């Protein structure tokens, strides 16, 4: 798909306007838009930016995590020829200010909680408010002609170095690269992609650009954690991920650890042995349990940022998930090579894109040419010139080999190649691949240490074994290496983990610096019996903000400084990082680390999605249920209850779905309310019932589900999952009827409303209709099986009301209460 400029790119959304474009669930409500709606937002965005005085060539900075608004802003900028400067939200204020100083943005957009101090120096807006900011602007394409040569983005590489370089990519750089990728990878428009890498990185940026060109549905997360990703894979049935290898390694470890916990590790190992002989479909059946945890639909993971360890790629391939890797740099917009879906797995970064030329220089450095190669470093002519050969090839700075049939294999960054006194070149990556497989080594980073006549191979090691064992491990590793690659010396890295770049690669530069400054080998051998890397100790240390805190199994948490505040942070962290939920009440002042460990082992795994019966919402059941209700059930109730309805006219023009709230005085009230509403509404109305009620009375449960499309609300424990479920029904177009008092009123008087109703009303912004019955109390009390007497009931229907997003939940609940009392 070739686009000359972003005007054409955004125009294309018109051809796929009905497809789902973006989805995000910031809290309990899911926000979706189609490509048609997305296109309109982008046009509004462009007109808004123009109105703010942003002109062609002006820079606009964004410091925020991924969300639909991020893309609306980005594409809005592109349409008017402005240049977006995306900055990773995890950067420090200092780094961000440095980027800003270089690019002098006229307007800065930041995430709500990100670097508020930017407001003092720049004209800033909050990205979360973007849809509000642009809502009054015309959804029409701006009248600006684009050539495609406009600077589209300035992306800074390695923000931690003293002088970060801003890579300028033009619209053509990006669009030709997207074209190359789309020729190499046959993107299925029905894919569903989860956006997890920062959009401020060229890899995610181009990835989403490619997916959106084809009409793929993109899902965003308000917060990126392993648990949130696992849930999203399941809830959204994600098919494809762009990831750094680290994430796949993490998932691999989690799958293996869970297997050990569940005593399934032997079965898992066996499955891995036979998997290579099976076709993909059978692999997925064999690993069905694992796939279920990954949402069941995950087909492809494309990794970038760093080479993926072969054993990790192999692990995923054996489970029937394609693990493809690509190669490129920000300067190449960014993809140069990628593995194809159809090709068999191989240990290579893949073939060059059709519009990219690659060659290997005499010294082994990979050189590239193509329309995707960047224009320049921002205001840094000397650097720009230094990265091109005289005949115009871009010097990637990576060493590698290209096979006769074009497969690229990267050996390592040129600047990290270790040059031995003999003149031999050693690639740290080659050693690491071998060393990481050793069971006594957790993490290893190989760097060169300067000696008088050259460098020697040095290893920074993370391990929970003693020095003797590590010496032995190094010996065993050396036996597997070529003679010239042998590790000469090693030391323990003084912390839990090696320093990492924002893309989670080990920050080799910093490790090299440390190794060359002379290492104090005793630094990490501070007594302490706790194995480093124990996830529980790590969580405690995080909360104590002391990465060296020594906590032994018998220590009471309170004694090491875990007070009630930290305790809750620890419980939350365990839930988030390990996916295990521990009841707060199980931990107190006397709990020791070993107690906590037992709780974690026996803790309940957090369910990834709501498991609720949904048969009552299937079409055939609704047809039967509605029919029976309208005839038989209605007739039965009429024997006991005569109804007069007032205020039906208030429902004229009501926009569905809506929330109906009623006063709770009798078992009959839901059926009576149901029957008082017009057929068009009640045929599409689901009643909320209390969990304990519905579970206790099987018959009642069946009846209420069949006739009244009832669902259960959990009123005891955490109310959020129930509310989320309610919102998901509203999202699907169901009207909801709910009794906000929670319990049946014993004396018939209106009780206080639960604030949950306020939350529902405010967060969904949907109309709320008050339905009040009088004269019903005592007809069929909760504890009786049969109606006690006949009654004549008046049902009053109020006017629909809606709440604005900034109303407090409590206030909304109170106002509804007042209105119902008055009605």
């Amino acid at each position: 798909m070739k686009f000359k400029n972003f005007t054409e790119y955004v125009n294309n959304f018109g051809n796929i306007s009905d497809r789902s474009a973006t989805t995000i669930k910031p809290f309990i409500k899911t926000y979706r838009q189609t490509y048609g709606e997305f296109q309109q937002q982008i046009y509004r965005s462009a007109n808004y930016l123009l109105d703010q005085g942003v002109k062609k060539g002006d820079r606009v900075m964004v410091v925020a995590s991924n969300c639909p608004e991020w893309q609306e802003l980005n594409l809005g900028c592109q349409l008017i020829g402005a240049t977006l400067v995306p900055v990773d939200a995890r950067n420090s204020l200092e780094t961000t200010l440095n980027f800003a100083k270089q690019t002098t943005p006229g307007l800065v957009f930041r995430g709500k909680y990100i670097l508020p101090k930017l407001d003092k120096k720049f004209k800033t807006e909050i990205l979360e408010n973007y849809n509000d900011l642009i809502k009054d602007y015309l959804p029409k394409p701006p009248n600006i002609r684009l050539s495609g040569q406009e600077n589209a983005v300035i992306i800074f590489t390695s923000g931690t170095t003293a002088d970060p370089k801003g890579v300028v990519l033009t619209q053509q750089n990006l669009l030709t690269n997207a074209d190359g990728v789309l020729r190499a990878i046959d993107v299925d428009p029905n894919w569903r992609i989860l956006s997890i890498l920062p959009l401020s990185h060229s890899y995610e940026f181009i990835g989403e650009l490619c997916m959106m060109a084809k009409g793929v549905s993109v899902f965003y997360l308000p917060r990126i954690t392993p648990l949130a990703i696992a849930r999203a894979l399941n809830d959204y049935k994600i098919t494809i991920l762009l990831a750094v290898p680290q994430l796949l390694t993490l998932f691999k470890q989690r799958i293996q650890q869970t297997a050990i916990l569940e005593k399934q590790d032997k079965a898992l190992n066996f499955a891995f042995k036979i998997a290579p002989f099976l076709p993909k479909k059978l692999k997925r059946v064999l690993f069905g349990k694992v796939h279920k945890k990954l949402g069941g639909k995950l087909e492809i993971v494309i990794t970038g940022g760093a080479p993926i360890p072969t054993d990790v790629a192999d692990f995923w391939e054996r489970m029937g998930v394609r693990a493809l890797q690509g190669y490129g740099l920000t300067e190449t917009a960014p993809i140069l090579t990628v593995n194809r879906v159809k090709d068999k797995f191989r240990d290579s970064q893949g073939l060059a894109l059709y519009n990219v030329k690659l060659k290997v220089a005499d010294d082994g450095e990979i050189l590239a040419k193509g329309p995707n190669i960047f224009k320049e470093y921002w205001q840094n002519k000397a650097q720009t010139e230094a990265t091109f050969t005289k005949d115009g090839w871009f010097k990637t700075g990576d060493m590698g080999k290209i096979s006769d049939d074009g497969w690229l294999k990267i050996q390592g960054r040129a600047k990290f190649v270790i040059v031995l006194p003999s003149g031999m070149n050693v690639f740290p990556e080659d050693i690491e691949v071998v060393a990481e497989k050793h069971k006594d080594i957790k993490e290893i980073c190989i760097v060169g240490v300067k000696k008088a006549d050259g460098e020697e191979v040095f290893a920074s090691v993370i391990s929970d074994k003693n020095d003797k064992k590590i010496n032995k491990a190094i010996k065993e590793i050396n036996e597997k290496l070529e003679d010239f690659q042998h590790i000469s010396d090693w030391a323990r890295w003084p912390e839990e983990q090696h320093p990492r770049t924002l893309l989670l690669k080990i920050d080799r530069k910093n490790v090299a610096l440390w190794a060359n400054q002379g290492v104090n080998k005793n630094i990490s051998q501070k007594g302490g019996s706790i194995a480093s890397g124990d996830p529980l100790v790590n969580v405690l240390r995080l909360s104590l903000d002391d990465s060296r805190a020594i906590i032994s199994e018998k220590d009471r948490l309170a004694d090491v400084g875990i007070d009630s505040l930290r305790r809750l942070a620890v419980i939350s962290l365990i839930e988030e990082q390990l996916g295990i939920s521990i009841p707060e009440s199980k931990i107190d002042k006397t709990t020791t680390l070993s107690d906590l460990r037992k709780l974690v082992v026996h803790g309940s795994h957090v369910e990834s999605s709501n498991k609720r019966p949904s048969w009552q919402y299937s079409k055939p059941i609704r047809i039967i249920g509605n029919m029976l209700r309208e005839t038989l059930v209605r007739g039965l109730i009429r024997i006991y209850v005569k109804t007069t309805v007032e205020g039906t006219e208030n429902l004229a023009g009501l926009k569905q779905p809506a929330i109906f709230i009623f006063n709770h005085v009798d078992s009959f009230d839901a059926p009576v309310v149901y029957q008082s509403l017009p057929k068009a509404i009640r045929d599409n109305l689901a009643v909320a019932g209390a969990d304990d009620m519905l579970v206790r009375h099987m018959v009642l449960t069946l009846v209420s589900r069949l006739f009244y499309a009832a669902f259960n609300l959990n009123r005891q424990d955490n109310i959020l999952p129930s509310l989320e479920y309610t919102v998901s029904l509203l999202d699907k177009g169901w009207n909801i009827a709910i009794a906000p008092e929670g319990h049946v009123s014993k004396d018939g008087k209106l009780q206080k409303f639960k604030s949950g109703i306020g939350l529902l009303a405010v967060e969904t912004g949907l109309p709320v209709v008050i339905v009040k019955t009088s004269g019903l109390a005592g007809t069929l009390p909760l504890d009786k099986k049969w109606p006690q007497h006949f009654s004549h009931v008046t049902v009053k229907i109020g006017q629909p009301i809606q709440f604005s997003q900034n109303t407090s939940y409590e206030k909304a609940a109170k106002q509804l209460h007042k209105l119902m009392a008055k009605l």
Partner: protein
Amino acid sequence: MIGIDLVYIPEFAKQLKLGGDIFLQKSFNAAESNSKNTEHLAGIWAAKEAVIKAMGKRPNKLTDILIVAKNERPVARVGDHELEISISHHGDYAVAVAKKEDQ
């Protein structure tokens, strides 16, 4: 019985950030965390801890304690009990006192 609690807001903010949404959901009822202002939340946290001291025991969940405004004054509701509370902020600290009527 009375209870008092003092919260150092920067430390509270740190733990809140660490624990994220899960922390927020476990500590506060929806109505309490409507405003995501850290100082405000620290005050509510202090109030809850003060209530626990006044009650003499910890409820199963912190969300079992609901801090709401009643006639412009904050009160705490725990089951059938209603406790008078008072919250104050200054600089880096939030402090709260709770009073439980003797039965």
